[in-house]
């Protein structure tokens, strides 16, 4: 029991100390640059308004899915930096399809979502194929595919989209396809989007596939030791392709709750940057489905609270990005420290057990 307690404490040690360190450094930076650190801290740690709580939940869901998408690759030592491009291409494609309103009712939700999955997977699959067949590092190819995705969707949107005022957008979906969601407070505080539930399904699915299936075992084994995986009969090339496809498929879903819940068209309402947030959150959550929940919630919390900085203090909103950056950096360092400590702990336990030859009792040194 105390063992369990110690393990839990160890697990929490890294993120908690990282947050503390990040807050201290951020406060120091604000103070040095002439701002008021106490203002910053009091805003960040104030109780959020209902409206912001709703936003936090919605944002957590999007960030969480992005974190999962990145984590699938990370678990296999695949650095899929391309979640950003994958969900952008998928979001544009799904929005265009849904906007065309070819399918009636709920089908106009399901089919575009499936399309988003396919597009995300395909976009990631390009990087997977390049890696497997040509040995191109997925880091390079996904970064380049991000740039291509931005330009491509921009071009297509400009060419085929609706020009409204200064903006361009895809055709908005019919009202029958809106999936607004559930209002936990008043209507003015906004809804928690229906499709935010996708995050829950994906989280559970991720956990089950990774921990309970042969495929998940092969994937984890490849990430832990590629040489051992090969020796055990895993075809690493195939695993690389599969996990890139999976990663992209999840990425395709990232923006769907916002699209059906609020935006209704792809254009200025599209929320960019979630793909990169996902990478940080996956790191923060140690690529574990439960850990990523906390990471996503923390980032969503900080983002929303930061919006109030401009209104209530003279501290810049960007400060919060410094905080997030430091959290990620220090958490990576702390995880390594904790990991080594854990190994030492285990080795000690083994050593306590090991020298157990018959004539032991009287010779145990204090």
């Amino acid at each position, binding site marked *: 029991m105390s063992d369990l307690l110690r393990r839990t404490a160890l697990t929490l040690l890294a993120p908690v100390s990282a947050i503390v360190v990040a807050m201290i450094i951020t406060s120091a930076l604000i103070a040095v640059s002439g701002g008021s650190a106490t203002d910053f801290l009091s805003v960040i740690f104030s109780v959020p308004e209902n409206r912001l709580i709703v936003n936090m939940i919605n944002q957590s869901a999007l960030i969480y899915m992005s974190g999962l998408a990145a984590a699938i690759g990370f678990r296999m030592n695949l650095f899929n930096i391309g979640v950003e491009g994958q969900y952008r291409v998928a979001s544009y494609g799904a929005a265009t399809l849904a906007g065309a309103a070819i399918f009636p009712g709920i089908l106009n939700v399901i089919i575009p979502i499936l399309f988003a999955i396919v597009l995300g997977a395909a976009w990631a699959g390009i990087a997977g194929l390049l890696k497997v067949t040509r040995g191109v590092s997925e880091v390079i190819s996904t970064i380049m595919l991000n740039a291509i995705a931005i330009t491509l969707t921009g071009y297509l949107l400009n060419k085929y989209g609706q020009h409204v005022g200064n903006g361009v957008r895809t055709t908005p979906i019919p009202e029958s396809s809106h999936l607004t969601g559930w209002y936990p407070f008043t209507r003015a505080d906004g809804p928690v989007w229906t499709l935010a539930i996708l995050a829950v399904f994906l989280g559970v699915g991720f956990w089950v596939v990774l921990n309970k299936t042969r495929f998940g075992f092969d994937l984890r084994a490849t990430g*832990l030791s590629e040489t051992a995986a090969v020796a055990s*009969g895993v075809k690493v090339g195939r695993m690389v392709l599969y996990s890139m496809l999976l990663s992209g498929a999840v990425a395709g879903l990232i923006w769907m709750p916002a699209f059906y819940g609020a935006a209704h068209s792809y254009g200025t309402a599209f929320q960019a940057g979630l793909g990169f947030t996902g990478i940080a959150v996956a790191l923060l959550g140690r690529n574990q489905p439960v850990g990523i929940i906390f990471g996503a919630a923390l980032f969503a919390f900080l983002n929303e609270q930061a919006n109030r900085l401009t209104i209530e203090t003279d501290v810049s909103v960007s400060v919060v990005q410094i905080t997030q950056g430091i959290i990620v950096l220090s958490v990576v360092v702390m995880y390594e420290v904790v990991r080594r400590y854990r190994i030492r702990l*285990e080795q*000690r336990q083994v050593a306590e*057990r090991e020298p157990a030859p018959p004539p032991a009792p009287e010779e145990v040194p204090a």
Partner: protein
Amino acid sequence: MADAEAGSRDAVRLRGITKRFPGVVANHDVDITIGRGTVHALIGENGAGKSTLMKILYGVQRPDEGTITVNGDDVTFHSPTDAIEHGIGMVFQDFMLADNLTVLENVVLGAEKLRGIGDKARDAIAEISRVYGFGIDPDVLVERLGVGDRQRVEILKVLYRGAQIVILDEPTAVLVPQEVDALFDNLRGLKNEGYTILFISHKLDEVLAIADDITVMRQGTTVGEAKPGSVTEHQLAEMMVGSELPSPETAESTVTDDVLLTLDGVTLTDERGRQLLSDISFTIHRGEVLGIAGVEGNGQEELVETIMGIQAASAGTVSLQGKDMTEWDTRERREAGIGWIPADRHRHALLLDSPLWENRILGFQTREPAVRGLWIDRSGARTDTERIVREYDVRTPGIDTLSRALSGGNQQKLIVGREMSNDPILLIASHPTRGVDVGAQAAIWEHIKTARRKGLAVLLISADLDELIGLSDTIEVILRGRLVAEVDPQTVTPQQLGSAMTGGDDDEEGAA
């Protein structure tokens, strides 16, 4: 050199050394006296505390209790730099050389202040090499050197830094018998020049051949001292383990007529067209152990990987029980009943950061009891891991322990137990007892012998010639990717085998 004090006739004296790690006492009450100008052997099983003691003497770790006296002076080392200043140098088991640098560059690396990096240094190295008969050219690239020469470069590095006391950690582990003889000649040369050698080993015949004094360690402490003239291998072994040494010898042949594995003209060519394996053909029958002898790096790894389907043969066929499996992938070969104990267990056989029971699944991802259908069978895998832990005597607090935390011997027992699961018909065992203590070694030999009696075919690759001769029914010698000789383990001696392995002109005609 006139030593005023009598005590300073001893190069090193360790008194009452105790080193505790949290929860473990690695060394306690260690007393060793090493006379100047002698070769002193420190022997003991893996885990007896030799390495910790050497780290203490070399300043890597500080003892909790006890004193270190070097040349009559009490010393406290905070780092290896302090040890080097007192004339203590260490040659580690794993060479620490940069392949793409020359001998000169490797030697001066980190010691640039001594004699610079130019001609002065070159002359000094050439001089040391000449005096002690190392035969090392300072300007040759290290990648061109063989294992024996690399070791001499390591020793050279230590001498160059002015060491008078040289610690050698298991220096013969990587050498063939001929190279061992050459090393011993070098060590005797050093001894005659007044150097003190501390020689760590668990090979008793070598210790008896080279040492002036022997200290035996067991369970973290020194349990006895001996002089080579007055002690037998048998007695030393008993001091080391507290019981008798096991032998790999198999009683009677269990070879049958059923052909199990056949390699026919297997050739492996790398992308640059070099032949790593040339026209390898052999047959293993049920119940037969085929040993492959050879200096490491002569194609053993490639041979194993070709049989396992990790590398695809460029020509030739591999068949299992008459079925051509040349085109099968690794998983299909494993499913057909091939177990594999790889040479590098950390790289190829374990997920170090996963618990033992997950390691049970590795290599068995498609077979019960580890999995059921597409799902991992957690309870099945755990139960079977517990069986392995029990039957193979894996010392662990539990099956949730990370495999990294186990000692090498226990990791190896787990691997052997796993690969023997699901009744394999062929076992490929590369260095199955390397880095494993005597107790685990005996257990592993026993498991192989038992399985062999039940009809298991074994391909055994080992650098331990005694093991090879003791366990094998037939021995093939591999040299530069070719099978160059077949020898009868009943009649061959390690010396003859060593000659065949190096392709040397044998003085005795042992190999056909």
